[in-house]
């Protein structure tokens, strides 16, 4: 038996129930060394749950697992890690108050008698980061890093001790292409060393490029496993969603007649020292205006200033009138909505019900007499959004924190759609969302635009920006370096402006 045919990890008939919710019904998986095994499934299909069972976060309700031919049933993540499994979780799990080095080395700090050797810790972390080729500063506090950088730290943490099986749960969902390339390089090296890699992603091109084997799951059930050579993106999507999908970006819709052509939002000379400089642009009703740039180019900072969450110099006009937002409440009142980038921090109250989260930014709309909540109207509105976005849940009272990652993302979107904004800022709106749902979200964005909503879209996924935006402003080093539209809107040109090769 050759090395590549050996199974390092297998699971059979695995079931997992969360109370009445059957997250996994009948899972099976065989992972071989030196191969990348992708798990593909819609949002809420059970991918993350499966991984958490593998690393001992949740015990399976039923089923058998084997590691290197031995029975395997980890009681906790420490045991899983001792047996040779490592994981990079989908939801970031870093301590914001600690440094990058401290996070990376957490749980195995170099220490003697319980005293941590800080110098050694820093040095080991720096070495690891350098070996991996990651562009992060190990002395920085995690709380100050961008999401992409935090994701890279999370990856470094997962790789900080050797593993037989490495699990990567949507590691690229918040990375731009260049950072993703670094990760792919790391994966190739690990593969060559014989590490088995379990990979989860919703980016189909990436899956086809990296995978050796692909297991499709649907509604918690095993569907099939294919070798990469024997399948196509179209077939995989059909297996995953249960129907064929012919296009990824819905076509632009005719704008409704009578849309005003006067800009709804005018920004000029917006500046905040150290973050962005002289940002100027107009936004018209019905327009989809993309903002593209590499990580750290200042896009998210500009958006949060537009939303009143950051003070900045310069002028913002809404409907031609100069405004000064002191807080988000002012911005919301002026008709601005902001689908934030980090769902766990700015987006959701994880310990609150789905319904409560969806209505959180629209509380004034559900205020009845004397400050009483109008619960009936709130439920109806939340239900409508849940159905419109096909959020997978069995009750509006489900806690947001128990939804799958992609479904949490949809809740953030639902929350802002409910405020019926005239200007909708989208910061990475489809992060972690499956292909079917992505199409649905794109369709909704198009629909809103045709009805006159002005849309500002920040995304690190270039195809997404090119596929939807009418105009794209490219940011580099805190400035808008170019704004392109029409036939100029090609991947090459946009990347060239973003990286500074074109000026």
């Amino acid at each position, binding site marked *: 038996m050759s090395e590549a045919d050996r199974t390092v990890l297998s699971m059979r008939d695995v079931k997992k129930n969360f109370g009445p919710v059957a997250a996994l019904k009948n899972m099976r998986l065989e992972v071989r060394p030196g191969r990348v095994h992708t798990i593909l499934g819609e949002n809420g299909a059970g991918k993350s749950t499966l991984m958490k069972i593998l690393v001992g976060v949740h015990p399976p309700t039923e089923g058998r697992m084997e590691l290197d031919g031995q029975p395997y049933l980890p009681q906790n993540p420490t045991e899983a890690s001792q047996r040779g499994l490592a994981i990079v979780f989908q939801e970031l799990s870093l301590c914001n108050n600690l440094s990058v080095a401290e996070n990376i080395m957490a749980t195995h700090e170099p220490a003697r008698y319980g005293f941590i050797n800080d110098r050694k810790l820093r040095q080991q972390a720096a070495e690891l980061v350098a070996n991996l080729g990651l562009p992060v500063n190990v002395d920085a506090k995690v709380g100050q890093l961008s999401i992409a950088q935090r994701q890279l730290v999370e990856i470094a943490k997962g790789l900080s001790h050797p593993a037989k099986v490495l699990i990567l749960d949507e590691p690229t969902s918040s990375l731009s292409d260049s950072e993703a390339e670094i990760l792919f390089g790391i994966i190739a090296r690990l593969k060559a060393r014989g590490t088995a890699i379990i990979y989860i992603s919703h980016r189909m091109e990436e899956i086809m490029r990296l995978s050796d084997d692909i297991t499709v799951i649907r509604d918690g059930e095993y569907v099939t496993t294919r070798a990469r050579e024997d399948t196509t993106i179209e077939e995989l999507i059909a297996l995953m969603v249960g129907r064929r999908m012919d296009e990824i970006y819905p076509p632009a819709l005719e704008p409704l007649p009578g849309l005003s052509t006067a800009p709804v939002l005018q920004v000029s000379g917006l500046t905040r020292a150290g973050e962005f400089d002289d940002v100027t642009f107009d936004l018209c009703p019905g327009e989809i205006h993309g903002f593209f740039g590499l990580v750290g180019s200042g896009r998210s900072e500009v958006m949060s200033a537009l939303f009143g969450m950051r003070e900045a110099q310069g002028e913002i006009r809404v409907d031609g009138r100069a405004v000064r937002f002191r*807080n988000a409440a002012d911005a919301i009142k002026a008709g601005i909505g902001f689908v934030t980038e980090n769902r766990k921090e700015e987006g*959701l109250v994880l310990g609150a019900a789905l319904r409560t989260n969806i209505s959180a930014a629209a509380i004034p709309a559900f205020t009845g007499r004397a400050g009483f909540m109008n619960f009936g109207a709130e439920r109806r509105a939340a239900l409508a959004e849940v159905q419109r976005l096909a959020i997978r849940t069995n009750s509006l009272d489900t806690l947001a924190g128990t939804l799958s990652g992609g479904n949490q993302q949809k809740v953030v979107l639902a929350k802002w759609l409910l405020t019926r904004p005239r200007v909708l800022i989208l910061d990475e709106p489809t992060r972690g969302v499956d292909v079917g749902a992505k199409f649905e979200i794109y369709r909704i964005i198009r629909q809103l635009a045709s009805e006159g909503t002005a849309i500002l879209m920040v995304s690190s996924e270039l195809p997404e920006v090119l596929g939807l935006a009418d105009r794209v402003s490219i940011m580099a080093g805190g400035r808008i370096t170019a704004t392109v539209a029409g036939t100029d809107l090609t991947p090459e040109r946009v990347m060239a402006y973003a990286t500074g090769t074109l000026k």
Partner: protein
Amino acid sequence: MTQTPDPITASQGHRLRALMLQYGGILLALVLLCVIFTALNGRFMTVANLTNILQQVAVVAIAAFGMTWVILLGEIDLSIGSIIAVAGMVGALALGFGFVPALLLTLAAGALMGAINGVLTAKLMLPSFIVTVATMGIYRGLVSLPTNGAPAMIADPAWLAIGAGTFLGLPIIIWIVLVLFVFNHILLSRTTFGRRTYLTGGNREAALYSGIKVDRLKIAIFTLSGVMAAVAGILLSSRLYSAQTNAGMSYELDAIAAAVLGGTSLAGGVGTMVGTLIGALIIGVMNNGMNMLSVPYFYQLIVKGLVILIAVWLDVRAKQRRA
């Protein structure tokens, strides 16, 4: 709009189960304590004694309603014991102007002291723990200023009737607890103010981005806590016929214990007034039952501490298992 059946809202049976899940453990603890004390002392389970318990628990319960708001926000208010004492003193001295002015002045004093806590916490961005440890000392010191540490006696019949009178067969003090319970419960569970409190306590950042004015909310809630403490101070001074400089000492701990026993999470965002009321009753039953059994004070402290630990541990464990 047509009324379509709503497939994803909780059914009634589901709600009842959720209620049992939420309060089952803590109610069981309350019943258990009652059974034990009844077995040990025949006079425990009498109408007279149960009314007595309710009267004794009133001051802590009302303070705990205010504390619940503060804890829901993820903050803490350690100054309420001192506010109780200041309120009593303000009331006793202001009774010279008449009953109603004294009442209003006392409540205003509570609101002011609470607002100071809130402003320091929200605007100076100091941790509420530090702020209220400091004001706990300051307010406690202020009590002694007017009388140089001596108690101020109260003779006003209306003021004394609050603690001693009855209305429709029930002690007035119990009516006050009930009214304030209903008020706080409705404010928390039915209004946008309550909703904003839950959201902010659950995730302050997300609340800010949702357009909630977190600073204002914080000040309002500390003010509310101060007012509740002032009411508690009025009741206490009425029952003691005087304002004492050491009145309400360490009541903040009983109030915190009541809220936490009732399932309020110190991390914020989780808790209810119903839970807090049950928590306060547990503390009242323990105090009363052990007094009846003449358990020495220091043993009472030990037992109370242990019961709180066990109850909270059981509750946490049960919730984890069901999750």
